[in-house]
């Protein structure tokens, strides 16, 4: 949602906030910041006439606002991936083990996880993704879903697992830092790019749509100079 859209739609009361998409209340784990935003929105109910479009004056702290890739480094020491394409299952499962302590810490600190949308454990999810990339006829661990649908859910779970792990580390609160590490520094990222490359012209429309539009963020595609597919 951007300001230009709100100007066109003219809802009765709207608070424009300058935060990145995905964080409309501004700062995670900052209840005071979130409460200020929420109160500013709710206080629009006091307006006697409208439409009202008010700009929220406060931005997020600068360390959260970075959208530039310079200086990014790998936050979690990971094994060097094998040079053999035949070992991608083993490489991914080994990497998941390396990420696990930080994931466990994240869950312990937050008391929650967002992993679980595929109903598979993360090792099963990794085995299916890497197995599919090696051989598309790899049996799916869920028979109630199409391959395209299961790939989407599996990828979301794996991304969430890695992202939760990385964001538990000091200095990794900015979304771009986590995202850049995931898509450029990990075996998982390499496999996600491989899935995109093999899927964008797939004969299965669901896999094609998923690979083109629902797998890798546009800012990573732009960063890599890869082909973007827009509707």
């Amino acid at each position: 949602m951007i300001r230009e859209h709100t100007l066109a739609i003219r809802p009765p009361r709207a608070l424009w906030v300058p935060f990145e998409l995905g964080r409309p209340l501004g700062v995670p784990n900052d209840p005071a910041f979130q409460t200020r935003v929420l109160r500013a929105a709710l206080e629009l109910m006091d307006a006697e006439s409208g439409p009202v479009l008010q700009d929220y004056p406060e931005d997020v702290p600068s360390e959260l606002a970075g959208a530039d890739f310079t200086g990014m480094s790998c936050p979690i020491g990971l094994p060097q991936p094998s040079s053999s394409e035949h070992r991608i299952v083993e490489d991914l499962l080994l990497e998941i083990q390396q990420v696990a302590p930080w994931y466990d810490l994240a869950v312990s600190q937050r008391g929650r996880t967002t992993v679980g949308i595929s109903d598979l454990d993360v090792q099963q999810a990794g085995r299916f993704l890497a197995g599919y990339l090696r051989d598309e006829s790899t049996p799916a661990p869920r028979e109630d879903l199409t391959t395209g649908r299961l790939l989407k859910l599996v990828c979301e779970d794996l991304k969430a697992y890695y992202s939760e792990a990385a964001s538990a580390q000091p200095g990794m609160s900015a979304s771009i830092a986590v995202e850049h590490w995931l898509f450029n520094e990990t075996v998982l990222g390499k496999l996600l790019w491989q899935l995109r490359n093999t899927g964008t012209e797939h004969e299965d429309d669901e896999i094609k749509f998923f690979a083109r539009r629902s797998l890798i963020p546009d800012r990573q595609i732009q960063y890599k100079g890869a082909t973007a597919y827009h509707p």
Partner: protein
Amino acid sequence: MARLKDLPAGERELMMKIPMPHFDSTPFVTGKPLSERRVAILSTAALQTRSDRAFAWQDAGYRVIPGQTQPNDIIMSHRSVNFDRSGFQQDYNVCFPLDRLHELADAGVIGSAADYHYTVMGANAPEQLEDTARHIAGLMKRDAVDTVLLVPV
């Protein structure tokens, strides 16, 4: 909402090309003071409880998040990858301010938080969501909600 200039070029162009619905007028009502209002959240983040169905590709339906849902039971199945999820992963209140709403109710800033809150997948065209929006409005009326906090993701 976000700054258009912060979006990647492709996403920025896409945002500017999206056809906007046109409304001849803006419905506008006043009502009770904030301290007497009952507030529900409607999120476009395709959130769901852990036991509910994931949003499908073109899913124009809704999911219910009861007000007393446990933190570990709120997960996300949005089809778009062009918004940040890491904030939600750290603290769902950054896109679904359920705890903050309950705190404002406890402090008397609002009258009460609704018993049920709702989510849809905002990647759908507005006209595809109209029936769902009308249905949710009916459910909110039965929950005595008089204020809706629409939180786009």
